[in-house]
């Protein structure tokens, strides 16, 4: 049992969720899969007076393709993303990341919207979504706005969301011809969270790298792009030497975390090794 009492309300629509959220004020919390909120409430890290269950808003629980954009509803759970044929076909690394979150039972409950709203520094989705150039759509009773993923994760457990906003969907550009993606992680041996997790999307045109995005999670207080590595790779032939040289810059300009699992120095090393491995997989897939 959770150690304190609170109110529980069910929102059957987004509009109802907005009004319940505004009634509850700053002591309201949204419940989707509950796999972040409930553990936090057990520890009293989170003590909302009102829990608003949005899990039954079915419009937010679907994966659709809209032209060149794959739209993943915020309430889609990790197991559904990992098993989705559309995700596998159009944004493979997203499914790869979803399939290594937590364990099967956690993947059956946890949702993509809840995951990124929480912005855990060691979570898998932030790294892969940065590499996939995703857009987060958030709505409130005053309208809708699109947030580029590059602007979304701002600090430890902090995002660009403002009070009263609810993530409704994540939009991901479909990967085109000659583009490969990959997500891999070095998991904490006990918790399976990413000590370092790396998402890579890379495009090859006539043997040269013409586009590249690399997202790293787990290493710093929030996920970041390996910008220097991306710059070094752009225009290169992606030879073994090119990749080796570029990977040395994977954590450049970042202040990395130090904890029981890994020192900051070790994380710098892991970043370069994991980025190299992920690039090699993505390049192989780009070549097809």
């Amino acid at each position, binding site marked *: *049992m959770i150690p304190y*009492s609170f109110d*529980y309300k069910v929102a059957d629509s987004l509009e109802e969720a907005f009004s319940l959220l505004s009634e509850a004020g700053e002591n309201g919390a949204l419940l989707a899969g509950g796999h972040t909120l409930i*553990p936090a409430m057990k520890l009293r890290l989170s003590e909302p007076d009102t*829990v608003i269950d949005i899990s039954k808003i079915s419009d937010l629980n679907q994966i659709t393709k809209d032209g060149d954009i794959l739209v993943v509803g915020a309430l889609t759970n990790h197991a559904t993303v990992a098993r989705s044929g559309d995700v596998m076909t159009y944004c493979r690394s997203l499914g790869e990341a979803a399939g290594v979150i937590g*364990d*099967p*039972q956690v993947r*059956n409950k946890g949702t993509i919207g809840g995951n990124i709203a929480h912005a855990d520094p060691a979570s898998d989705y932030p790294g892969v979504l940065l590499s996939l150039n995703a857009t987060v759509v958030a709505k409130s009773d005053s309208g809708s706005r699109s947030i580029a993923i590059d602007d979304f994760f701002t600090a430890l457990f902090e995002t660009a969301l403002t009070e009263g906003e609810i993530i409704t969907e994540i939009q991901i550009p479909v990967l085109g011809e000659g583009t490969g993606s990959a997500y891999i992680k070095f998991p904490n041996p006990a918790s399976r969270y990413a000590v370092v997790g790396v998402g890579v999307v890379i495009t090859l045109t006539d043997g040269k790298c013409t586009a590249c995005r690399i997202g790293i999670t787990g290493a710093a207080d929030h996920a970041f792009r390996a910008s220097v590595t991306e710059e070094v790779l752009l225009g290169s032939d992606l030879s073994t030497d090119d990749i080796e040289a570029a990977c040395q810059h994977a954590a450049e300009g970042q202040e990395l975390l130090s904890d029981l699992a890994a020192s900051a120095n070790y994380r710098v090393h892991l970043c370069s090794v994991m980025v190299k491995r992920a690039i090699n997989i993505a390049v192989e897939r780009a070549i097809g």
Partner: protein
Amino acid sequence: MKHSISMTVNGKEYSGEVEPRVLLVHFIRDHLGLTGTHIGCDTTQCGACTILMDGAAIKSCTVFAVQAEGAQITTIEGMASNGELHPLQEGFHEEHGLQCGFCTPGMIMTSVELLNQNPNPTEAEIRHGLEGNYCRCTGYHNIVKAVQYAASKQA
């Protein structure tokens, strides 16, 4: 404030009045008296409290009972039918898949969904599929054999 909830558990309708802070595992154990579902860690890690909710294996220590309103729940008590053990229960018996038995209900409920998704898993797929269930006695070897036993029996 208490909420009225009703759900189907092992094919039977149950209803009750609960505060929102009651976890599903406590509702199942304390209100319904179905104590086969165990509480191990209470932190979403060990998997002892795993049940099926609308066909999906979930950790019932990390769901409020009120969230299960209208759900179809299966617990370990719903596995045997007409006095016959379920193939997974039989597998754990035949392959000596348990020592203290505390983790076994959760292992079995997770394995139900595992075999529904993948009726003929490899050893590696079984080990990966049971990643969210801890056993502190067996070293997992006979648990894997128990799941293989059930897979071949159900084939």
